[in-house]
């Protein structure tokens, strides 16, 4: 299954993501069995909880652009698509500051210029237990960071979403403590999976998806991926992030997808993939353990949720 393609042809897939040929051959048989079993699922105790076909088909563009959590435009899932029409994403500037040798205010073009454009297809797991598969376009955050030349004191990166109540109706009420803040440890920010996205399905990001620039960290819950970024700041102390400030017992700094550690109010063991009927089992690190698990070795992930 394609998870992190560079560009068609360039990709070197982690071997773990490739379906063994035998399993592939068995697929029809497996599906037929599932269908039969599903018939008795209502009676049987559900060993079938995960019997869904575990494939990662790309979520349709229409769904990706009409089901969003972007409280700056409203708390309803369709609010961002409905109420983001007044938002003007271009021209755009990003402030780079803090513990780095090359700070400044950069036009978006200049911030991105010269960096390799990547088009990875990532699973996106929302903390609300639904998920999508999204073909992104963007640049690796590590390329942007390298150009900023963080100093030896830089251990974290804090990022900020724009504040424009005139264009973002959700910001006219204090649903959250605006501006929306998120942060990563420097090694997380430098991870090969972490990107600053500018597009979906080869098209520029729509306002509801965080135009013109947003963060994507596929092994973390979706709320880490802040949208419409205006500031990147290098710090030596762990930055605050909005949801943690809102409810520290429910949302942590790391927010790694973890089926073992439940949200205090609901289970994180399963998720509903948009477009599917049955819930599927949630994977540790959203299935990206091979690329990211090493960063958390020795950490108690129940404590650092």
């Amino acid at each position, binding site marked *: 299954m394609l998870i992190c393609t560079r560009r068609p042809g360039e990709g070197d897939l982690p071997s773990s993501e490739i379906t063994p040929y035998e399993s592939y051959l068995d697929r029809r048989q497996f599906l037929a069995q599932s269908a039969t079993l599903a018939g008795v699922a209502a009676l049987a105790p*559900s060993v079938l909880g995960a019997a869904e076909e575990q494939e990662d088909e790309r979520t349709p563009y229409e769904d990706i652009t009409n089901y969003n959590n972007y409280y700056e435009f409203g708390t309803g*899932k369709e609010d961002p698509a409905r109420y983001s029409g007044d938002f003007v994403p271009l021209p755009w500037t990003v402030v780079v500051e803090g513990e780095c040798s090359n700070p400044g205010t950069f036009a978006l073009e200049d911030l991105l210029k010269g960096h390799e454009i990547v088009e990875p297809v990532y699973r996106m797991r929302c903390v609300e237990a639904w998920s999508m598969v999204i073909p992104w376009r963007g640049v690796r955050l590590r390329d942007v960071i390298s150009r900023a030349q963080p100093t030896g004191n830089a251990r974290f990166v804090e990022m900020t979403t724009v504040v424009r109540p005139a264009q973002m109706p959700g910001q006219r009420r204090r649903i959250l403590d605006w501006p929306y803040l998120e942060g990563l440890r420097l090694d997380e920010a430098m991870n090969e999976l972490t990107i600053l996205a500018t597009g979906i399905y080869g098209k520029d990001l729509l306002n509801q998806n965080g135009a013109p620039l947003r963060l994507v960290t596929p092994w973390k819950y979706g709320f880490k991926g802040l949208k419409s970024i205006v500031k990147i700041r290098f710090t030596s102390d762990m930055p605050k992030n909005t949801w943690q400030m809102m409810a520290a017992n429910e949302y942590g700094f790391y927010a790694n997808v973890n089926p073992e550690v439940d949200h205090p109010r609901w*289970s994180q063991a399963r998720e509903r993939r948009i477009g599917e009927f049955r819930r599927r089992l949630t994977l540790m690190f959203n299935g990206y353990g091979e690329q990211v698990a090493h960063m958390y070795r020795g950490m108690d992930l129940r404590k650092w949720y």
Partner: protein
Amino acid sequence: MVLKRRILLLKTGVWILGFTPLAWVFHRFFLGDGLGVNPIAEAQLWGGLTSLTFLLTTLSITPLRRLTGWNDLQKVRRLVGLFAFFYVTLHFLIWIGLDQFFAWHYILEDIAERPYIMVGFTAFVLLVPVAVTSTKGWIRRLGKRWVTLHRLVYLSALLGVIHFFWITKADDRWPTVALAVWIVLMSLRSVWWLKSRTQPAWAGRRARSVGWFAPSKKGLPGTPERS
């Protein structure tokens, strides 16, 4: 005859209003947007909001009757209450059958471990005996205890509101509205209850049957003018 026609009209209205949310959701699903990108979550939300609306409507009938003196309302209280139970049941079945797809292991775990589900489930369970005993036969059989039993609706509605608060992530606007409605309705009841205890029985009875905006001084239920 006039009374019967009026009640019939009122009941017809309640039946139509009662099925409107269901008709609307079917219309949306089959002819509209198919309930959007995440139809099961949308159906869950619809079921929950409709349930709570009907529960609070049920609780508002007696206060409304007393405030307006519109005594016919009493005749549709059970019907509205049964619609509330219908939607709560639907909300529960959507959770079991669509959201969880009969994954009993997870369902039981959720009921036992998730406070918001526990509270919502309790709100549903409390309504079962209330709905079952809503027939004339049960009213007769239970006598005074019937009233006590049916006060479970107060608690059930409150648990429904708490359930709504606990599933909300950040924007508490609508749960707050629901709580405010519940508090107002229960405060009115408390005030009337206290008054009926401190006043002589005959005064209490009058206060209960004639509202502040009574259309007619003769508006006592059962008087010839109104029947």
